[in-house]
């Protein structure tokens, strides 16, 4: 019995147990499942922490994990396909969607069969709480090579990530046919999701690289204050508003001369950027602030008083207030010519032990969603090649991916456009 079937079996045994509001009915061989939505009152009986009940819709015009709020924990998993046929590849992508939908909406873990391995690893106990779980699937340029005959389906702006000056990319930490971004409130939710996703695609998709990320906690002073990155500066202040649909249409969602199946999708740039934190911590405070262009405490642009204040570069053409090579100035010059270059950042910090010299290996999993990586992300990145902060960071991995539109319901899956004629 493959894992998908195991899950069907699990659902079937649940239904036969009549497990409260979570009873699920099988709908035959199509793989689609119908059932009543999990019921909060029933769930509350098995979940002590109500935050674990927070649920993000899996299906929709766009995938979750793009515009949806950033939960505290994340894991990025790049997979390479060893599937021998397109059908096998599609089956594994479908498998990811099916599991993601179930796990992100919450499900009871049924009784395990006696003589077979249990259908669920069970590490979350009797109920797989949704815990704001989102699973976002994205595809690398390498998936559109000759192996599966998908070349004609390639999103027009999807290329391997180009080389930027100062990058020290490790091939073992870059690229991949498929990237899965898993976000949730708690680390165990993520670990569980990884376990279930990985065994669901065993034999077809194999892990290439992975990295865990976390959000620094919301420590104020205001509810909308941006959180800090590991250089201690607030990050994400200038992000375009995700509630502005017209803006998202201009900056995020695929548009123009793209294959029709891509509508509602977006280009996802992932960069694993080591931050040399010991070195950074040995730099004078004023120099740090001038490299960034912001006050470290408040996040206000230098010379300002609050985080979301316009830095008014136009009134500071010589860099008297904010140096001309400060990060915020090069990243977003706030001119009419650069307004279409803006990107939606959704990064996570990482800590992955120590390096051979005994230094902390900490950094940023930079994540950006944009409509056209060349027009937007790459243009910004090339401007940043001259910033003084480059001494303190080393990009080591990541890649360009395309996050397809969301699944349109239980019968659909993320990436189904690849399989349509």
């Amino acid at each position, binding site marked *: 019995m493959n894992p998908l079937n195991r899950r069907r079996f699990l659902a079937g045994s649940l239904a036969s147990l009549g497990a409260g509001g979570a009873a699920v009915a099988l709908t035959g061989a199509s793989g689609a499942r119908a059932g009543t939505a999990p019921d909060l009152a029933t769930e509350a009986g098995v979940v002590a922490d109500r935050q674990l009940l927070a649920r993000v819709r899996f299906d929709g015009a766009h995938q979750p994990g793009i515009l949806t709020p950033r939960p505290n924990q994340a894991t990025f998993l790049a997979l390479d396909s060893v599937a021998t046929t397109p059908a096998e590849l599609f089956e594994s992508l479908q498998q990811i969607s099916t599991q993601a939908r179930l796990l992100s909406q919450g499900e009871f873990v049924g009784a395990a069969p006696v003589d077979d391995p249990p259908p669920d690893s069970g590490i979350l106990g009797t109920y797989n709480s949704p815990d704001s779980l989102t699973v976002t699937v994205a595809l690398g340029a390498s998936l559109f090579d000759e192996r599966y005959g998908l070349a004609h389906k390639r999103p027009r702006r999807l290329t391997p990530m180009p*080389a930027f000056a100062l990058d*020290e990319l490790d091939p073992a930490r870059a690229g991949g046919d498929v990237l899965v971004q898993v976000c949730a409130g708690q680390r165990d939710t993520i670990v569980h999701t990884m376990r279930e996703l990985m065994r669901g695609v065993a034999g077809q998709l194999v892990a290439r690289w992975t990295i865990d990320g976390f959000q620094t906690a919301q420590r104020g002073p205001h509810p909308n204050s941006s959180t800090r990155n590991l250089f201690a500066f607030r990050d994400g202040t200038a992000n375009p508003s995700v509630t502005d649909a017209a803006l998202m249409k201009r900056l995020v969602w695929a548009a123009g001369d793209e294959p029709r199946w891509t509508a509602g999708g977006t280009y996802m740039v992932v960069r694993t950027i080591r931050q040399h934190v010991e070195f950074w911590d040995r730099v004078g405070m004023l120099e740090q602030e001038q490299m960034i262009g912001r006050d470290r405490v408040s996040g206000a642009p230098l010379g300002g008083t609050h985080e979301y204040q*316009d830095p008014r570069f136009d009134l500071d053409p010589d860099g008297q*207030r904010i140096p001309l090579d400060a990060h915020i100035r090069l990243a977003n010059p706030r001119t009419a010519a650069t307004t279409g270059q803006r990107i939606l950042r959704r990064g996570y910090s990482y800590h992955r032990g120590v390096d051979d010299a*005994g*230094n902390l290996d900490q950094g940023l999993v930079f994540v950006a969603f944009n409509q056209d990586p060349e027009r937007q992300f790459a243009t910004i990145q090339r401007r940043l090649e001259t910033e003084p902060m480059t001494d303190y960071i080393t990009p080591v991995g990541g890649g360009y991916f395309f996050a397809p539109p969301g699944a349109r319901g239980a019968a659909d899956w993320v990436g189904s456009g690849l399989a349509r004629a």
Partner: protein
Amino acid sequence: MSRLRGAVVVALLAVMALVGAALIPGSHDRTGPARAQAGVAARQSGTNTLHTHQDTVFGSNISARTYGTLIAEREQGIDSSGQLASDLDPIGPRVFDRPIAAYRRYAERWAATLARNVTRLRVALRAGNRAVAQRAWTTAFADYLHLGAVYGLLPDELNNELAGVPTSLGERRFTGLHRIEKGLWTGAPTRSLLPAAAALATAAARLRRTLPTVAISPLDYATRAHEILEDAQRDLMSGSQVPWSQAGVLGTAAGVAVTREVIGTLAPLLQGRENALGASQNELARLQHVLNSVRLRDGDWPTLTQLSQTERERVDGSLAGTLGALSEVPGTLETQNVPQIPKIPPPK
């Protein structure tokens, strides 16, 4: 304000308090924390046999009453009017002329040595003896690293020709010391490295012509005092820039030598300005001692992979300690008052 700097100030205040206490007969049995805070000789009634009252900070005309407050505020990065302020007065940029000139002569000597040793490397490559060639490479690489305080100031193209690293820009532009290193440690025929060595010789000659004209600003120079070993920690002890030869200890030893040279030229400027000089010299001496203790019996530096875990930890630890001390140097040598950042004009 750094913790180290804070500790230094506390220590200074404590010394002053002791001096103050010593000036006050009969005070030795009453030295408590309350007495040690201002660092001045407080007015005492009755038993003052010196017949003077010390109301100012010893050796200055600063009022004892305001001194502690002033120091405390400046240590917090603001002065009494609420403006950003350094805890030290800036020093004139001209006083850097002599240290920089002395360092330039030092670098020029190493550039000449590099050129000579590149010639030896070419001879060894032509002769086809890999072990001899590897040793010649190691010598030339150490020569190059002795330029520590200037290599970042050379034109990018020259830097790349001397010791560029293979980045994602591709192998095509990869030449210089690390290109030869790669070949020597990955089994390439030694003679196949002759073109790269010839190009390196040309670059070394150009370096000798360029060095006298390289502009070195006081800020560059003061910053280099800690950045040479920052690079050693980030790029050499991690092995990331010497993946083939694993010559991280050799590189770090060269970095220590050049940093001691830089600190030596700066000693007259650092003298008496907090304790960056003493702390740096102590840590550098300790690091030098640790490095000497891991040297191989034949006097060579061990490769990173030859270090035992204990040796590795001692080198890494001492290097980290040294970097902490050196990070105080640039701020101690500030040549400008802290710039006052203009305010963003309010919207009309």
